[in-house]
């Protein structure tokens, strides 16, 4: 029933991030970062799983709210910012707000970064680079460790079946679903 907006992650952002963050492989990143990301991890998934999700804690080191408007990864072209509300997954059209001087936990059953297409599997122990795009146009990179994890499946179990079909349709429609390397 709900309208699923298209991907927030655009190819242009993905390209920019890949260039800007080449060689960056730490938990936290970016010049004058308003945000740091601690304990990032991403759920392992086979290509046929079609989806995965990344988690961690966003820490706002400034005295103003920071809004994450998009996430990108050069390895995984289609990412969305999601929140699980009452067991159902919702895409966050307005982004994720990390309160001034505070934290926002991305965790199973709550906020997370949805990986919508899997041109290649995410294997345990893989290091996956992500970039967060903030409302002011700046970016924050982080590297998530891939972990086997049985939870975090709200998208399959708790949301309506038509939601799931729509997501699958969207991923199969996606033109840029090619291995990035």
């Amino acid at each position, binding site marked *: 029933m709900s309208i699923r907006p298209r991907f927030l992650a655009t190819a242009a952002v993905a390209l920019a991030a890949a260039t800007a963050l080449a060689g960056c492989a730490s938990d936290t990143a970016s010049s004058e970062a308003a945000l740091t990301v601690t*304990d990032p*991890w991403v759920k392992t998934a086979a290509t046929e799983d079609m989806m995965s999700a990344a988690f961690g804690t966003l820490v706002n080191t400034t005295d103003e709210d920071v809004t994450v408007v998009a996430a990108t990864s050069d390895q995984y072209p289609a990412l969305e910012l999601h929140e699980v509300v009452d067991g159902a997954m919702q895409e966050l059209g307005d982004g994720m707000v990390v309160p001034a001087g505070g934290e926002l936990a991305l*965790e199973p059953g709550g906020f997370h970064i949805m990986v919508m297409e899997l041109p290649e599997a995410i294997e*345990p*122990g893989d290091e996956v680079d992500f970039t967060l795009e903030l409302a002011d146009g700046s970016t924050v990179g982080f590297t998530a*460790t891939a*972990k*086997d994890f049985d*939870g975090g499946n709200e998208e399959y179990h708790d949301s309506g079946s038509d939601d799931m079909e729509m997501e699958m349709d969207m991923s199969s429609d996606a033109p840029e679903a090619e291995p990035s390397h």
Partner: protein
Amino acid sequence: MGDTPRRGPSRRQLLLGGAAVGAGAAATLGAERAGLLPGTGPAADTTGVNGERIVPFHGARQAGVTSTPGAYATYVAFDLLESTDRDGMRAWLSLLSDDAARLTQGRGALADLEPELAVRPAGLTATFGLSREAVHRAGAAAPDWLRPLPAFPKIDALEDRWSGGDVVVLLHGDDPTSISHLLRMLVRDSRSFATVRWRQDGFRRAYGSDPHGTTMRNLFGQVDGTTTPRPEDAGFDAAVWAGPEAPAWLRGGTSLVLRRIAMNLETWDEVGVDGRENAIGRRLSDGAPLTGGTEHDDVDLEATDASGFTVVNPAAHVARARVEDPSSRIVRIGYNYDDPVEAGAVDTQGRPAVSNVGLLFGSWQRDVDAQYVPMQRRLAEADLLNTWTTPIGSGVWAIPPGCEEGGFVGETLFA
């Protein structure tokens, strides 16, 4: 005078209580701890709280080798999946170290939905070991001694289910909940790389039961491990740490031998105190040598009694296990086990078994062939304790050096 036997104790309690109040709270605590005041108030005793004690994970050595053994231990051994290649070994070992580095420091692991369990590590350590197969999968060369121990047919009754394993992890600490949680995270992160081959749990006295540094007792009641070198002792480093003779990846590491030794409490019951002390060569009461002194005094193997026999039986455990050269000694880490009796188990008289106990005999040494094997040969040949003990599990692993923050144990294999 007129007190009935029933009133006596309660009156003594009152008197003691009064005295304790007069003498201050410390005396009350002491008396309560000593069990002199059953049922004394519900006030929480926080004097021995140690849940937040942290043993650093990172460093030149793996922490489980150098830190004081905790009250509880769990060994878990894994068999590698066929598909686990060099890259897989690197990814797996990296995940294991990441879990251990976080949970031993009181932080939740990645993807840990029970981080609340992490906040009381109580000295938790994790130590990783590799078999010859694991070293080869990682594409490195193994030292000669990295293989199963030679057979000791006079004593061994080894069972596969307690023996071998491509990778072993020893967790020890003072809190079984934190051990359980780390174990669970490690096993969960192993599913794509290996299967659990066996798990063995052991214990010593609980934290706070004995003063720090007290030698453990095994379930025969013996003081066990008196002469084992401690990290601060001269000779420890030379006995334990692999040097230039070892492959480069192992330098600064060591080896682990683990023997699961079943102890027959029923036949041990048939032996009096003299026979028990004769078997070990030490007093049961305090672990002192039968030739006198206190626990840490040297055993005099030459001392004779009035009839001209040596005081210490030449076949006693202390006589057979003795190693003169400190650098040739092994460093023992023992834990008792007391598992449920297995279905259908019988004792030596054919009756249903009533106990299933023993010792997880672990030892660290620089070179298994040079240090462990000669001693084990002597003990297998003659040791009065063999009458009541049976090795039922055995394994040998290389223990790589430690790692710094951002690294992982085993990274030297990939250098």
